[in-house]
């Protein structure tokens, strides 16, 4: 069974630039999550989708972050404009109802 796929793996941008991350969840997993992980901390939920609807985006900085999940499968997370404090690893995860999360490899973002 293929795992969660993410791209790119690494991205370096200047502050105020925009960036987008892509995620393909495990086939059949209805719930998709985007997490932000700052070095030395645990993952922090940014947004949670159930199929193609948003379940929880209470911690998403909506003035600069946006996310969508097309046709209930792939998802993209965008940051525009980026700030220095957005430097982190962005993790995508998916799950079945009542089952553990399975994570992708993450995208390491560096904002200069």
């Amino acid at each position, binding site marked *: 069974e293929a795992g969660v796929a993410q791209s790119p793996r690494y991205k370096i941008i200047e502050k105020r630039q925009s960036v987008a991350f892509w995620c393909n969840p495990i086939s059949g997993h209805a719930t998709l999550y985007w997490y932000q992980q700052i070095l030395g901390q645990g993952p922090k939920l940014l947004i949670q989708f159930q199929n193609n609807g948003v*379940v929880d985006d209470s911690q998403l900085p909506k003035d600069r972050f946006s996310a969508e999940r097309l046709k209930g499968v792939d998802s993209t997370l965008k940051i525009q404009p980026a700030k220095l404090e957005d430097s982190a690893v962005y993790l995508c995860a998916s799950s079945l109802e009542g089952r553990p999360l399975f994570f992708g*490899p993450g995208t390491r973002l560096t904002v200069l």
Partner: protein
Amino acid sequence: EDQVTQSPEALRLQEGESSSLNCSYTVSGLRGLFWYRQDPGKGPEFLFTLYSAGEEKEKERLKATLTKKESFLHITAPKPEDSATYLCAVAGNNFNKFYFGSGTKLNVKP
């Protein structure tokens, strides 16, 4: 508010020196507690799910236990390849919402 606290933040062990990592939690209606291993530059890798107090799970040198307030990850005779950050997460009444601790960074010296 649902919360997960892990201790210690970092742990250094000699190869073969057994120890335990702690995960204490407050959650409305625990539906599951999860342990993950995270290697540098990688996403967290699922290890165990525990559903109710008294439950135990084992995998190689790792054993996870659960009480009503905390979980322990026991590492028996660790090897250098066990070095990683171990994350704990809980799911409460809304089973699809997960709360993570900050992790314990384990370093096992040969």
